[in-house]
């Protein structure tokens, strides 16, 4: 048996491993759902979290094991593959997730419109994820001697992608505080398979970039393709899983699997296509009678810079999208009050208000402007007392939590933060805690009260918009 035969057979087994891996993950998910409905485990608290996190690791592990097993004839060092997996996981946990969730606050605005969904998925989430997977491979394995085969790009790329997916999955399990195991496993498997696919594409381009002196734009092209695939997957999945209104009380809601099948199909297609491409590349190299340039020094700096530049361009588009979706404002002018409010808020002025806007479909937060006529000698303190009486009689447990004197647009003002309980009487829903802020400005013989109403959970998110609303208000 010649070396070439061995290598060829090994390559031909790619698609078999891909099928086995996808089927294995799907079967595993099916088993988890089956066992869950059979045993109806009463896991809760820490036990549920621990089992959830362990189950979150399985799809990635299955995928890696199957590929590792098929690669056994000339396997990559286990340590290296595992290292790249961990690097992917760490980069996602330390940079990727905090940047998308805390800095860009993607979940707050991604679903506001189809435009924000498409642009946000590709230029923010897609670009950041692809870049970190790229960084994991490029900085931690690409320039070493271990990266010496065409398929190495796919092996290491997938490892990094699965590491990233695992971080997302652990975060998902922790954030949902122990979701139902079956449904959670569907999501976990979906995320793992989808990321294996995106990263596989990037990996193929990385492999060829290193081993076949490709043009400068080759790697950026692969980066763009992986980013687009990532974004398109999010968009397509959201088209498949649009939400349902089901008549009747459904106690046993079966997990939705359309996203999982989509991810499975994508992973399979990518694995097969990449395997075929690699085979074709080998055949072409043989026909041309030259060996691939196995040289660690070949890694093209310019190509790397071009990729980084592309990422910068993509993320700039992403930042513009983010700012225009979240920072867009609408001007208003009512009864001598001029200002702006966030684009996605709607006017909800009620009796007794000068002006009121509400984030009807989002956080539900409200910004209101009211005025109170003052008697001679009355000041902000009288307004505070009047508000306390009014809110105290309308709601339960009204309490001023914090109060201080501030300057608002050059005028002295009183700022207070308060909370109360809206009893939701007769709505048969639980009472709700409302937290808010007032700016009270004495303006001649009237007091202007600018109020923010929201829930304690949403307060940090809506406060910046409220600050902007207050600061740009003139009267």
């Amino acid at each position, binding site marked *: 048996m010649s070396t070439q035969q061995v290598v060829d057979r090994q390559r031909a087994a790619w698609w078999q491993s891909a099928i086995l891996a996808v089927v294995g993950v799907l079967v*595993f998910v099916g088993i988890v759902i089956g066992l869950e409905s059979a045993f109806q485990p*009463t896991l809760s608290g820490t036990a549920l979290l621990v089992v959830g996190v362990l189950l979150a690791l399985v799809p990635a592990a299955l995928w890696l094991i199957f590929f590792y*097993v098929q690669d056994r004839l000339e396997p990559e060092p286990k340590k290296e593959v595992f290292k790249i997996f961990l690097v992917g996981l760490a980069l996602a946990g330390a940079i990727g997730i905090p940047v998308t969730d805390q800095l860009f606050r993607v979940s707050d605005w991604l679903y506001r419109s189809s435009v924000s969904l498409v642009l946000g998925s590709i230029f923010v989430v897609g670009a950041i994820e692809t870049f970190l997977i790229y960084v994991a491979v490029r900085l931690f394995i690409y320039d070493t001697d271990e990266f010496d085969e065409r398929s190495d790009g796919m092996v290491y790329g997938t490892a990094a992608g699965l590491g990233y997916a695992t971080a997302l999955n652990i975060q998902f399990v922790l954030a949902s505080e122990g979701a139902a195991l079956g449904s959670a496993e569907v999501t976990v498997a979906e995320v793992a398979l989808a990321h294996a696919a995106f990263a596989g594409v990037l990996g193929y381009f990385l492999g060829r970039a290193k081993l076949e002196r490709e043009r400068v734009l080759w790697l950026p092209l692969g980066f763009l393709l992986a980013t687009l695939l990532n974004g398109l997957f999010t968009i397509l999945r959201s088209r498949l899983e649009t939400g349902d*209104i089901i008549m009747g009380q459904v106690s046993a809601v079966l997990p939705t699997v359309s996203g999982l099948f989509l991810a499975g199909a994508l992973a399979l297609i990518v694995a097969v296509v990449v395997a075929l491409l690699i085979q074709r590349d080998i055949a072409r190299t043989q026909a041309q009678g030259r060996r691939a340039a196995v040289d660690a020094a070949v890694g093209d700096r310019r190509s790397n810079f071009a990729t980084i530049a592309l990422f910068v361009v993509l993320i700039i588009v992403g930042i513009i999208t983010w700012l225009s979706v979240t920072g867009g404002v609408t001007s208003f002018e009512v009864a001598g009050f001029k200002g702006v409010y966030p684009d996605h808020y709607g006017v*909800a002025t009620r009796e007794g208000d000068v002006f009121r806007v509400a984030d009807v479909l989002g956080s539900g937060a409200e910004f209101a402007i009211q005025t109170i006529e003052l008697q001679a000698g009355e000041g902000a303190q009288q307004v505070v007392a009047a508000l306390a009486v009014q809110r105290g009689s309308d709601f339960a447990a009204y309490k001023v939590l914090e109060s201080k004197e501030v300057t608002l647009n050059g005028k002295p003002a009183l700022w207070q933060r308060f909370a109360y309980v809206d009893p939701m009487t007769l709505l048969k*829903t639980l009472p709700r805690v409302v937290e808010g802020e007032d700016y009270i400005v004495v303006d001649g013989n009237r007091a202007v009260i600018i109020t923010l109403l929201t829930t304690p959970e949403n307060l940090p998110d809506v406060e910046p918009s409220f600050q902007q609303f207050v600061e740009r208000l003139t009267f």
Partner: protein
Amino acid sequence: MKTQMKVFLSILSTLVLVLVSVLGAFASTPAWRAAAGNVESAGNDALPQAAACTKMQISNPALWFATDKKGNVYPDKIVKRYPTGTTVIASGFEYNCIPKNTTIGVVYYYGGFDTEPVFSDSHKESPDNKSGVFWWYIGYEDGSPLPEGDWQVEWYINKKLASKGEITVGGGTKDDIEPLETEEATEEEATEEEEVTEEEPSDVEDIWDFGEEEEEPVAETVTVQGKIIDGKTKKPIADALFVVLNPGVGMQEWADKDFAEEDVYTGAKTDTRGQFTCPKELERNVTYTVVVAAKGYQIIVAEDFIIDEQQEDPVVLTIKMYK
């Protein structure tokens, strides 16, 4: 390939074994767990002493007492109707005595005994050998007027229905805070079948308020309630918005009008358990646009939401949302 299959099967079976043992360890034996009951045990120590009260007897039908704005109840004044603008209504009964271990339960309905209760509560009473009057009043926390229409009450003694009654709110003017008709309570006094008074249209437009009670049969409108959950985790979504737009108003039109409240037929927000109830009933066979929104989830717009005769009242919805 054979080796691969072996590896595949061995990995899979190992995982299954691990899973079975983990889940099995936490498995609950019967799939139909019994709901926790709160029946008051009669107890062996409840043997009555001589002359002590053994059986509680209460007046039926239930009585309705005059009330005022502050929530004061005047048990000596029985009313046959509450005026428009009434903020507090109070039903009650006369009783002979209260034995040990007596729990009195009350259920208030608005729009018929077959609707979802608007209020229910129960309380364990201290034993009492004397007769007296018992009542339980209800009203909005914020002191706003109660919706006009027929209100019903059921009284339960130790979970057994003991008395019921009905009263109409409306027919007077808002200024009439004191009851229009008051009479001295008598032993035989009972709320007879009330004549249906002409109702005034409600001038309240707030979407969180009850709608006007229609003259049509109850079956024509249905209460809509439900639960909104994350389609992936099945966890309830708190603070999700369920909005029903006025018939004929579509999502685009509503969005163009800046989500104006005037286009909203009714709406509700979910509590921390993901549950909501629309304060206003929906008409059957009318096409509404329903919008469901929650922060961080894809918005759901159903432009053809119809409740037909097949649906029971109340209609309970299960809504799955996705990220």
